């Protein structure tokens, strides 16, 4: 659905150099610190900025040849930007109706009601959470084949986040061929949703892994200094000095579980992996 090939863009502080892919029928997550290049990647994919080099293909077409009818198939939700605050949901409904061929108005209105989004108040008066819900609902209400969501759950409390993620899940169930590219700071959201994860730092992809591999095979070992010296380091990706000794990130935790009985191993999760990949040392 999305293919980003060696896309580069030079900024003042850093350089973006990305290759990534979102496959049909998949949910791909993007994780990274603020300023790591997530938003720039999204902007490049959406055609908002022009890369210095590389190629982007969306829905089988080169982005440079992307036209307005191609955009019908894409649903977007961004963090800082949305419909004008002066408009009300009533207005947004009319706008969406006139923009998108396949706008599902009844469904959209029903969802707004379910989420208690007021129809006749200016969007500028909404809470952050409500604005976020509106954005996502707008994105999933016109039968888009591809969703591009930049931190759709930011500002939402746990309950609302769960509800929103469920909306995304049912969206995927309706059509097997749909795909989602989603970024978030809340790793647990991504762990329960995404099929694969890209870790970005300083404009580059530092890790790309299937979620199940990340959760099942990755782990963080905790060893004392002496044991660290004797440790078979073949499968250690990163290590970090700690007061008790060392923390080591591995993609083969089963190997260490089998060969070092009683070794302290923590299950891998996105936060841990990211912390170690970015902050840990390479061997």
């Amino acid at each position, binding site marked *: 659905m999305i293919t980003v090939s060696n896309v580069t863009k030079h900024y003042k502080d850093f350089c973006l150099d990305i290759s990534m892919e979102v496959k049909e*029928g998949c*949910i791909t997550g993007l994780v990274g610190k603020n300023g790591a290049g997530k938003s720039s990647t999204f902007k490049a994919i959406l055609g908002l900025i022009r890369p210095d080099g590389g190629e982007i293909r969306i829905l089988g077409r080169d982005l440079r040849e992307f036209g307005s009818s191609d955009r019908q198939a894409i649903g977007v939700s961004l963090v800082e930007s949305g419909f004008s605050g002066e408009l009300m949901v009533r207005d947004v409904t009319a706008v969406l109706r006139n923009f998108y061929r396949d706008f599902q108005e009844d469904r959209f209105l029903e969802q707004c009601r379910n989420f208690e989004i007021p129809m006749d108040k200016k969007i500028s008066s909404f809470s952050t959470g409500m604005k976020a819900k509106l954005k996502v609902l707008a994105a999933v209400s016109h039968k888009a084949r591809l969703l591009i969501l930049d931190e759709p759950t930011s500002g939402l409390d746990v309950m609302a986040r769960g509800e929103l993620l469920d909306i995304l899940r049912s969206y*995927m*169930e309706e059509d097997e061929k749909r795909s989602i590219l989603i970024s978030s700071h809340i790793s647990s959201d991504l762990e*329960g949703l995404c099929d694969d994860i890209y870790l970005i730092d300083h404009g580059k992809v530092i890790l790309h892994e*299937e*979620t199940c591999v990340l959760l099942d*095979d990755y782990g963080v070992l905790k060893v004392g200094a002496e044991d660290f010296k004797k440790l078979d380091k073949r499968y250690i990706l990163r290590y970090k000095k700690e007061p008790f000794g060392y923390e080591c990130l591995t993609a083969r935790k089963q190997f260490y579980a089998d060969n070092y009985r009683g070794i302290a191993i923590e299950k891998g999760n996105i936060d841990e992996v990211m912390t170690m990949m970015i902050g840990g040392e390479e061997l």
Partner: protein
Amino acid sequence: MHIIINNSSMIPIYEQIVDQLKESIIQGELLADTALPSVRGLSNELKISALTVKKAYDALEQQGFVVTVHGKGTFVRATNPELRKEAGQKEVEEGFADAIGRAKRCGMTRQETHQLFEIVMEDYYDNGQ
């Protein structure tokens, strides 16, 4: 049947799914030709990645418990007692490996291990435990 995933377990999630589905099939809870939930449907229900479910289904197919029909879904295959026994035997083998490994590590000789094995065998096969 409902699959329950333990996220904090060290056992890989797809393995948990495989085990539970296998159990149901062997026990006859899931009858032959029953359709398993769609990959996306099950992943949504369990709140995990779809690839994990796919991995589980693929593993089950490889082990002969299910068959995937392209475009239609994944269906339970008729189990025969052979499969049941085979699955059981594999577990026994794993149990043996674990026990013998432990015996070795705590310093027991081959003979001592064998002796202990015979004692336990007696308990179960001869004395009706």
